[in-house]
């Protein structure tokens, strides 16, 4: 089977993430995760991401910064009997243990997968009976229940959804330019549909600001909070 997804291909001599690299270093040092020598491990981590060319990868850099921060915290003076002192490594240790446990499951899954890969299923498959022959079992209540699910899914206002949809500023710029090609001036509603989604509104807004910055148009409002209008910039037209 041809493989098209790079991320799926086995990375033989690569680490699957900063935790993987960290765990490997700890194993090489033959120290316990629960008592990881932060200073030494941090130094090796930095060396290793440099030599592996991972120094650009944000996830590795983030981990490097975290290690250095913990190292610094470990150096702060403290009294042995100090109460309420929390080991600065605690969170990292927890994550490492969790990650190591997951790697154990991975080993198990890998064995299962290898076993399964070593057997073939039936290769020749007769054509399945045409499913259209069977009538569809559908009812209106079922459809309405689906509508209800969709509504409940979308009716909750979520500001986070705004960022999940990439803005299309270039598309909006094209629309505005097209309007100004046909007319000398336009209004907000000429370029934004009444039922526009937040991302569309934002796209147009950014596009208008960008075109104004470039001097391609002038933005104005006839009164405070009035509709935004725009017109071809006379200067740029002359140019």
């Amino acid at each position, binding site marked *: 089977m041809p493989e098209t997804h790079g991320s799926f291909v086995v990375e033989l001599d690569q680490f699957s993430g900063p935790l993987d690299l960290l765990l490997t270093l700890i194993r090489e040092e033959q120290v316990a995760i629960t008592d990881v020598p932060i200073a030494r491990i941090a130094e090796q981590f930095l060396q290793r991401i440099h030599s592996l060319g991972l120094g650009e990868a944000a996830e590795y850099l983030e981990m490097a910064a975290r290690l250095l921060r913990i190292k610094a915290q470990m150096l702060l003076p403290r009294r042995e009997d100090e109460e309420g002192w929390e080991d600065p490594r605690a969170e990292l240790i927890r994550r490492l243990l969790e990650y190591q446990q997951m790697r154990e499951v991975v080993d198990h899954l890998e064995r299962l997968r290898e076993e399964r890969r070593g057997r073939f299923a039936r290769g*020749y498959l007769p054509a399945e009976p045409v*499913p259209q*022959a069977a009538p569809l*079992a559908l*009812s209106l*209540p*079922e*459809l309405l229940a689906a509508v209800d*699910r*969709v509504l409940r899914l979308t009716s909750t206002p979520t500001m986070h959804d705004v960022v999940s949809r990439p803005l299309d500023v270039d598309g909006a710029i094209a629309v505005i330019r097209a309007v100004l090609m046909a007319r000398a001036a336009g209004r907000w509603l000429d370029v934004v549909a009444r039922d526009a989604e937040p991302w569309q509104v934002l796209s147009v807004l950014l596009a208008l600001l960008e075109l104004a910055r470039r001097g391609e148009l002038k933005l104005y409002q006839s009164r405070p909070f009035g509709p935004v209008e725009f017109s071809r910039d006379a200067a740029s037209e002359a140019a």
Partner: protein
Amino acid sequence: MTPLAKLLEAALFASGRPVPLEELAALDRDATPAALAMALDELRTEYDTGGHGVELVEIGGGWQILTRPEFTEAIERAQLAARPQRLSAAALETLAIIAYRQPIGRAEIEDIRGVGVGGMLKTLLERGLIDVVGRSEGLGRPLLYGTTSVFLEQFALRHLEELPRADELAIALRSGSHPE
């Protein structure tokens, strides 16, 4: 069965097409053509006399294991019976979005559902429940989908306006016709 006959059985089972004798020879370099012919014969006899649901046939210049024809009808019937042609919850949701927002493009549906719906649209198109009703004016002029007469028929609707409005929906759902 002999090891060679077992190997042939595994290989013919795994192959997606009839396998010519020369290719079967590649399975075991030490096997003579005579040994190969004997092992094939052994496999055929096993299937024919041991009381199996499959048989070894020579077809299209090669060898293939096929289910016995007397079972095909029962198998097809069982496949249809056991796979009721219901739409998945995801397909129903996609259909619901199209019914209420038509004409609507794929990107907008995916925006609402939060996942890709390419395969789902194909299923609904094949089922005749939706159809391409136009193209959007937007970038790339994406296809727009709408519901069909098959859709109305399927849900025993005279026209789309018979679908409850969104604000009536809660009531319609509460009227006891809820699916399990």
